[in-house]
């Protein structure tokens, strides 16, 4: 999942003909001020970062003149908000606010959920906690979608009537269509605004996109890769190199996230990696990273990039290469890239401990490939994942004792 910034979200909605205030992103205050002139002088200036709660952080500024736009832009650019560097600001025309609503769609479980409230604008989580009756929830049938009937039912339940009802119902069904079209897993519109003429305007908009949907959105794919973030922080150079290889090389997948321990993990698949990580912590080992891998055509190349990243990490003291019983992928396809990087980096395997648990088809061949590295431990077929983790932690502890 990755979050689109406001400029991309709104450009997407504008393209679909939805009522969004005019706006653009800038990285220079002068250009922002000149653009504000075309909007009539005053504008809303917002820090362009992929997260919410900007208003409370002082990262949304209402201005009345282009000079004030300039000042606000200068103040915001280069600062940090909620851990994100503000490299750009979003300048948008001001909207007259008569009523504020909240609307969101999410698909983080089955069935997806629609959430609406007639008291938008404020922190919706607080509203919900204080008065859950003001937030109305509905299940989404993915085959029917959110139609006029369901939208009308929910908004009436939220106390909206008459012309206002017709306006919000219409924008709700259009926004659901946009939610599906974007391959979004979350769309939050807050606030959804009605002006004194009863016209609807999408003032706050956030979209979180399903990575599996990115092949249908090539424009976003590049942004997702370059700008991301291990969710709680930006990727470092080593993580970025793996992430880039993952996108550029076709077939298979590797994910690599650095942590603060010293035992490097080249583990997988999803479940077996989680189990080994838990076990390592339980017996006092400290992983230097986590990996998750999926087989496919490009996996050898992706492994090489990952193994290089592991050896580039200065904290790493030993390496555990351990996978669930390989049912289809030949074990040699994992051993070969490891051997290649060990040679390329001239790793002295007698001083740098490596534990390998690779069982299944091609096991004998994999063993032969790794035979040339003295000191490398290739565990026998009957060694379990439990045994592999224990071996790695034992050898790391032994290193400590020698010193």
């Amino acid at each position, binding site marked *: *999942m990755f979050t689109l910034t406001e400029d991309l979200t709104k450009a997407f909605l504008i393209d679909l003909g939805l009522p969004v205030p005019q706006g653009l992103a800038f990285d220079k205050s002068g250009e922002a001020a000149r653009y504000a002139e075309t909007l009539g002088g005053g504008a809303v200036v917002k820090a362009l970062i992929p997260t919410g709660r900007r208003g409370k952080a002082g990262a949304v500024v209402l201005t009345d003149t282009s000079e004030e736009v300039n000042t606000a832009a200068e103040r915001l650019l280069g600062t940090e908000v909620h851990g994100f560097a503000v490299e750009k600001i979003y300048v948008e025309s001001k909207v007259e606010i008569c009523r504020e609503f909240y609307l969101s769609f999410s*698909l*983080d*479980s*089955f*069935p*997806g959920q629609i959430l609406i409230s007639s008291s938008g604008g404020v922190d919706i989580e607080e509203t919900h906690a204080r008065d859950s009756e003001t937030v109305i929830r509905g299940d989404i*049938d*993915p*085959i029917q979608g959110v139609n006029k009937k369901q939208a009308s039912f929910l908004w009436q339940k939220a106390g909206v009537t008459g012309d206002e009802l017709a306006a919000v119902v219409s924008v709700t069904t259009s926004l659901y269509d946009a939610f*599906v079209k974007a*391959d979004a*897993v979350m769309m939050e519109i807050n606030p959804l605004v009605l002006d004194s003429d009863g016209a609807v305007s999408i003032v706050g908009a956030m979209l979180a996109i*399903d*990575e*599996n*949907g990115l*092949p*249908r959105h090539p424009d976003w794919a590049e942004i997702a890769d370059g700008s991301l973030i*291990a*969710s*709680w922080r930006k990727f470092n150079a080593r993580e970025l190199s793996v992430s880039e290889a993952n996108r550029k090389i076709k077939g298979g997948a590797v*994910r690599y*996230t650095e942590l603060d321990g010293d035992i490097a993990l080249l583990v*997988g*698949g*999803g*479940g*077996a*990696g*989680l*189990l080994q*990580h*838990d*076990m390592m*912590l*339980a017996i006092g080992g400290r*992983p230097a990273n*986590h990996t*998750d891998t*999926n087989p496919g055509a490009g996996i050898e190349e992706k492994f090489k990039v990952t193994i290089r990243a592991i050896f580039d990490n200065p904290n790493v003291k030993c390496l555990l290469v351990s*996978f*669930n*019983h*390989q*049912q*289809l992928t030949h074990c040699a396809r994992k051993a070969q890239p490891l051997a290649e990087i060990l040679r390329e980096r001239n790793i002295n395997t007698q001083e740098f401990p490596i534990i390998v648990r690779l069982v*299944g*088809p091609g096991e004998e061949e994999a063993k032969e490939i790794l035979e040339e590295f003295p000191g490398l431990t290739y565990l026998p077929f*009957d060694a*379990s*994942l*439990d045994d592999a983790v224990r071996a790695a932690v034992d050898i790391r502890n032994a290193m400590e004792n020698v010193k």
Partner: protein
Amino acid sequence: MSILIDENTRVLAQGLTGAQGTRDAEFCLRYGTKIVCGVTPGKGGAEVHNLPVYGSVKEACQQHQVDASVIYAPPLSTKEAVIEALEAGLKLIVALAEFVPRHDTAIIAAAARENGAVVVGCNTNGIISPGKSKLGAIGGDDPSEVFAPGRIGVVSRSGGMSAELSLAIKRGGLGVSTCISMGGDVIPGNPMVDYIKRFVADPDTDAIVMFGEPGTKAEHEVAAYLRTKACTKPLIALLAGEFQENYPKGVSFGHVAAMINDVEDTVSAKRKMLSAAGAIVVNSLGEIPIKIQDQLGS
């Protein structure tokens, strides 16, 4: 017996003519799976492993008795392929592809329920009833190395772990009735609890082993079922991914579905909940056969 598939299940392979389909089908046929034909749009009339290939599922079903379909379609075509199989009336579908968009998986799940069908996957390596039949890559070219026939039902959110669980069961001198990799996606075609109910109803399954992960409500549904006291067989649960609780929510280190959005979705919360509901929660593979023996008194 076993659940979902056995030696008599007649199987259609959607995408048989592709590289993955052709290779997987060869291993399945060698294992004893009754694949009767293939379907690839636009390739009707072709032949793979001496099996006829049709242009549509409907056409294939007119020519053959078919009980189940295994789908090798790429991620962006998987939804259409599943719908086609459901519309042809098939009640068991194994959809293997990883990276199927979330909205497509939601439609698949809804369509499966609407048609009273079981869709295993997406993002699975398949299902196996050891010694009888298998669908998908599960077990590779020599399933007997890992999967011994027996009376333990296995359901896993991880394909790789389905092999490790079955291997642990085999090393403990036991065997598996059916092993199901239910798929690692946020929205699986069929919920975990449904497989557990099927194992409970199966006279040839004595105990059930499940593998859970962080994220999703799959384990909550299992716990709710256990609380009804309808589960008459021992359920042993191994859950992994507790370490993710050391990191901010919204981070996944494995399957996309293993992302924690909610405190209730953490592994430690799920362990507590399952244990309180009557499951036997273990922390390592080695404990699994020991707990089964304890429960079955052999």
